[in-house]
């Protein structure tokens, strides 16, 4: 991944780092079970549209989570009376999410320190 010499413009969307999308999905699901479409809406709204997640890329991530049994899925009917496949976080998923968040925070802290050495640690 080229880190330098890349002109950042507003229209340039950066790829998320591996695992980021999964983490956000898990976090959304922790609040409440949802189907794919609702998840996309939720992530985009919460990020103030800063994260332009291509809707389709949600599904491979969901499959990975399903495969490692961090979420489970069931077919049902939504509040708007649509047939939907609703995802729910599992206990394993909750545990995984916590680990991910804490390790992400540490990483973020490290990166911030390097990028701005004068600044004291965020917390």
């Amino acid at each position, binding site marked *: 991944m080229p880190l330098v010499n890349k002109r950042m413009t507003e229209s340039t969307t950066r790829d998320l780092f591996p695992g980021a999308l999964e983490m956000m999905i898990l976090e959304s699901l922790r609040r409440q079970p949802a189907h794919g*479409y609702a998840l*996309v809406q939720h992530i985009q709204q919460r990020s103030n549209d800063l994260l332009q997640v291509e809707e*389709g890329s949600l*599904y*491979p991530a969901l499959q*990975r989570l399903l*495969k490692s049994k961090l979420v489970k899925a069931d077919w049902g009917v939504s509040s708007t009376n*649509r047939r*939907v*496949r609703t995802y729910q976080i599992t206990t394993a998923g909750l545990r995984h999410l916590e680990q991910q968040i804490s390790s992400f925070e540490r990483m973020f802290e490290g990166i911030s320190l390097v990028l701005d050495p004068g600044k004291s640690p965020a917390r």
Partner: protein
Amino acid sequence: MNWMPAIFRRRKLFDDLSEEMRLHIEERVEQLKAEGKSANEAERQARIAFGNLALAEERSRQVWQWPTMESIRADAILVLRQLRRSPGYALAAVLTLALAIGANAVVFSVMNAIILRPLNVPRAQSLYELQYENQDVANMSYPNYLDLRDRNRSFDGLVAYNISMVGLDTGGSPSSSWMEIASGNYFDALGLQPYLGRFFHTSDEHGPNSAPYIVLSYAYWHTHFQDDRGVVGRAVRLNGHPFTILGVAPPEFNGTLLFFNPDFFAPLVEDPLLVGDDLNARGNQFIFATMGHLKPGITPAQAVADINSIGADLQRTYPKDLGKMAFVLRSPRLYGDYLGRPVRAFMAGLMLLTGLILLAACANLGSLFAARAADRSREVALRLALGSSRKRILRGLFTEAIMISLVGGGVGLSGSVVLLRALSAWQPFPSIPIHLAVNPDAKVYAVAVLLALVSGILFGAVPVRQVLRTNPYEVIKAGSGSRAGKRVSARDVLLVVQIAICGVLVTSSLVAIRGLVRSLHAHFGFEIENTMVASTDLSMSGYSGDRVPAMQKRMIEALEALPGVEAVGLTDALPLAVSGEGDSIVFTDNTSDLRPSNAATDAAIFNISPEYFRAAGTALLSGRSFNWHDDKDSPRVAVVNREFAHKLFGFASDPIGRVFKIRDGSRIQVVGIAEDGKYNSLTEDPVPVMFFPILQSPATSTILIVRSRPGATSVSSLLGAAMRSTLRQLDPGMPLDIETRGKPMDITLFGPRMATASLGVLGMMGALLSITGIFGMAAYSVSKRLRELGIRVALGAQRKELLQAALGRALRLLAIGSAAGLILGILASRVLAFIVYQATPRDPLVLAGVVLAMALLGLVATWIPAQRALSVNPLILLRED
């Protein structure tokens, strides 16, 4: 591994996924429409927002796919990319394996066809042939056959047949054709159904010459009657006698002898008319083979006990006529052990040698592979350092090995299929319907694929230790492994083994070729040069009784009158030509009880004209030859060969004038001694032979040997044409075969020639493999040590020293391997002596030839690496790195 439910679960998963994504887009479309977009616009925007649907779906599915399958595919692609970068190596490896696997496929296919595949008759597994316990043959008289057939309780019908040549006249001039003359129950007991018309049955037989019917073989019907379905019921003439075509045998049935395909089948009761055997004589063992299906539940041992008790009874009842009547059961396909044993031994030997070739190829590829792995040690080290597992690296190596071996196997197999097709279509002898169907079947393909896989794993395993031992830190620190180890490495051992195998092959092929050449120039007891042969059977053109010798005499006289002809002799059978001479047991004059067990020996019979010895070039050692006065009215006389004289009269006394008796009790006086010769095969031990004058012992089989004066007619075809027109003037309808004396010997020489040819090919392949092996080794060691060589040159090394440093090791290995190969080859050649006459490794020429060949191989193989070593430029080398 519960992959079965996994597969079904996966389908459900994928269906769910597609459905889910479809619903997602649908929901977005509705949302957009609710926001006031047109249907088309909503659809468009929904799809843009979703992104590449197919890609998302594929990526989602990949989550569930097997990681190993995926990564093996990736490995394969990587291997292809690496091989494309070294096409020379890839080509060499594939070709080496193609040769080795192709050779194995051919040999296995032939073995499969002639040894493993059952005969084309129903229930072939339970079909057995009777063979005498103490001999490899199965000849039997008709009365004996009838007794065995009717009295046994073990066989579902015992059938008998004989092979004979007759003149078949379908309304033109008669042509000589081959028939199986078989018992009436032949087709029924074998369980066959006619392709057309009907077969003959036991119910058609009512004593001698009562069933004038024939059944055509499918192939003969196809080639000679152009598939005309109207042949059923057509009248033909056999040796001038009227016969009727009853039907056509099924296409897949070619008789019960594997490689001999008769033109048609006739009932055995017609034998007296067509061939002239006596159906009532207990001692006339003219039947070629007797066989039958075992009844269900009867074991071969029970059947043998049953048959032998009948045999013992017959022997007691007819002591004058019968020798020991004890049998064993054998497969009929190769005529019991007679052909079966040598063919099996030869094929086993050949299979062993081709196996060695494959092993040599694997050794070859193994060392190539190891060298490649060593070249890539930096890459391997780097990958290990970056966290790749050793397992993963080994898997990459094996993927490469197996891909190469599969491609090589595929190429080799296709080549062998072409060769086998050609071999199946080949008819080595135009006058005899001998032909071998060796087409490959599923078994052959399976074996080839298996061999390819095994060899891939074998040579892929060579560098395993190397990879497992790789220490990334050391390799990267030390640079491109410049340590030229003095230790003996696995690669060296492989090379020595391979050269030794090649040495064995080269030695045995040279021994075989030398043996064949020598046997061709050996003395057969007759001269081939300046000799033509005209053969016919007078019974085919309707001669019988006194008309036969009269006609024979006229033929001799007519040929003698031809210009340039020195002598014309007549015989009823030709030595070394598989023409089936008669034989008889012989008694000393003072034996009164003429039962077979009292016989002094069993001697072959040749019925000849007075000039035979001169025409054939057989030396008369003492006494006289015959003259035209040795006829029915004078006492019976014989010329015997030296072996006969020794067997009957001992070495001391002069045999001329002595008397012996034959089976029918006739007393015969010896008037001359002829030199020994070869009569049936080049490898046979001396055989006792007696020659009888044709006027006393007439025969319709007429083989005229015409010896021309040296230089008189140098072109044999001219003499042949003159002979044909001369004989045609005597009888225009006579079927005639005219050829040089050497031609009929092709059959006798077929075995040794085939053996020599196959050994020659294997020897060449072995040599080729050694060259590539030594070349690979030498080239590798030169390229590894270029720097060192450059330094040596810079320090003033001479060419000789340089070569010694670069190639000394390869040449030493070559010497060790060749010596081992030579010794093993000499041991192996003892086996050869059974097939190829006079094949002996104790022959200075062979030994010198092997040494020379191996030295030549070494020279050829090291030439290019040596040039490279000599052209080292120290400046350029030292500038690198």
